[in-house]
């Protein structure tokens, strides 16, 4: 092996790497808030009395879940201007990430509520609890036991998915790494550093979520 690694060449760019990480986290946070709201609306649409809304909810979820994120983001950024809707790269990235999380989170939450046996709802009604009280005191916590781990996994996946928006040159960790690559020509080193930064961020969040899960949603051992 004749290749000599030169990580020192990247040292002057550490602030740009850090800036990229912060942009990635901001992108993830913003898309999480919008995406979860969209997911709840989708869930409501799927439980609506109107067949049209139900069909809309189902189609949205299935289309997003069965096409690649790359095509979704290219469609939104390059395709929609053809219909007169032009978005900046960052806005298109947030829109695509939120639409993506909306579909997946709707499916996860639905799965969590479906996991509650029907008898639990019926028992709540039999005890004279209102539907809201039943939901609040009987359904919510066990549903969260199913939902929370899946949703936190989805959050980490979203964090990793943000790297794909570099393809529409929205600024985040991967796209700043690409610019550092074109300045230093140390491609392998640049992407090793970027990959390790992603690894740190995702491990940080998965450890945090595991701790929250253990503290709030674990079954009492005794």
């Amino acid at each position, binding site marked *: *092996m*004749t*290749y000599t690694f030169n990580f020192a060449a990247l040292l002057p760019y550490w602030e740009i790497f850090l800036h990229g990480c912060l942009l990635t986290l901001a992108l993830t946070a913003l898309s999480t808030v919008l995406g979860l709201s969209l997911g709840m609306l989708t869930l409501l649409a799927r439980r609506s009395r109107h067949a049209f809304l139900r069909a809309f909810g189902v189609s949205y979820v*299935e*289309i997003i*879940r*069965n*096409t*690649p*994120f*790359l*095509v*979704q983001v*290219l*469609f939104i950024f*390059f*395709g*929609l*201007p*053809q*219909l007169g809707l032009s978005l900046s790269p960052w806005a298109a990235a947030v829109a695509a990430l939120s639409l993506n999380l909306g579909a997946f989170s709707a499916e996860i939450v639905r799965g969590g509520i479906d996991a509650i046996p029907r008898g639990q709802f019926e028992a709540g009604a039999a005890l004279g609890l209102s539907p809201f009280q039943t939901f609040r005191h009987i359904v919510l916590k066990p549903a969260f036991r199913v939902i929370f781990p899946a949703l936190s996994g989805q959050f*980490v996946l979203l964090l*990793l*998915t*943000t*790297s*794909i928006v*570099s*393809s529409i040159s929205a600024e985040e960790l*991967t796209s700043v790494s690409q610019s550092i690559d074109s300045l230093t020509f140390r*491609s*392998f080193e640049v*992407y*090793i550093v*970027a*990959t390790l930064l*992603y*690894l740190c961020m*995702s*491990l940080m969040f*998965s450890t945090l979520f595991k701790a929250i899960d253990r503290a709030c949603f674990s079954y009492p051992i005794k």
Partner: protein
Amino acid sequence: MVREFTLNEIWMILAGAQATLILSAIAFAGGGVFGLLVALLRTAPVRGLRTLAGGFIDFFQGTPMLLQLFLVFYGLPVFGVHVNVWVAAAVGLTLHAAAFLGEIWRGGIQAVPRGQSEAASALGLGYVDRMRHVVLPQALRMSFAPTIGFLVQLIKGTSLAAIIGFVELSRSAQIVSSATYKPLWAYGFAAVGYFLICFPLSRYAARLERRYAVAT
């Protein structure tokens, strides 16, 4: 010169699906072989092997697939391997699939009741026979639905190979888009192509999952 968007262009895009399917098949087959190895190491009786496999899985589950492809694409030449995009995409996706399938099948192996392998040991079966005839057949059957679910993820993931220049469904849509200036149609048809491949598989996985849920 701007080309018209005609049936011919639609055909050009959908022809890219062939490379998508071949790449998916290679990565799924390669990932299956290495994934089985990862799953066995992850459940091995030796602690060092378990840690090693765990680290491999954590790395691939904790980093973006796009960066994994970049590392292979820029990293293989460092080790003196001549890169062509087919090799880079196939190696990157195979490693990715090995980690995810390894984790899915580890779950399957651990879900097989302990008594099964204890009974096999009591009958005098060694590790290989115990795994091959007793544990793995049950483990793989239990993890069949999530395996198909991951196949859908993998097919969608092959689109990222477009970014390192591999011509498949997404890349051919990009090419048509820049030749015709009709990105809405180009990416729309690419999405239709993926949907036609992935939707039936997703439905199949969901049906398997329901059937398994009823059986238990």
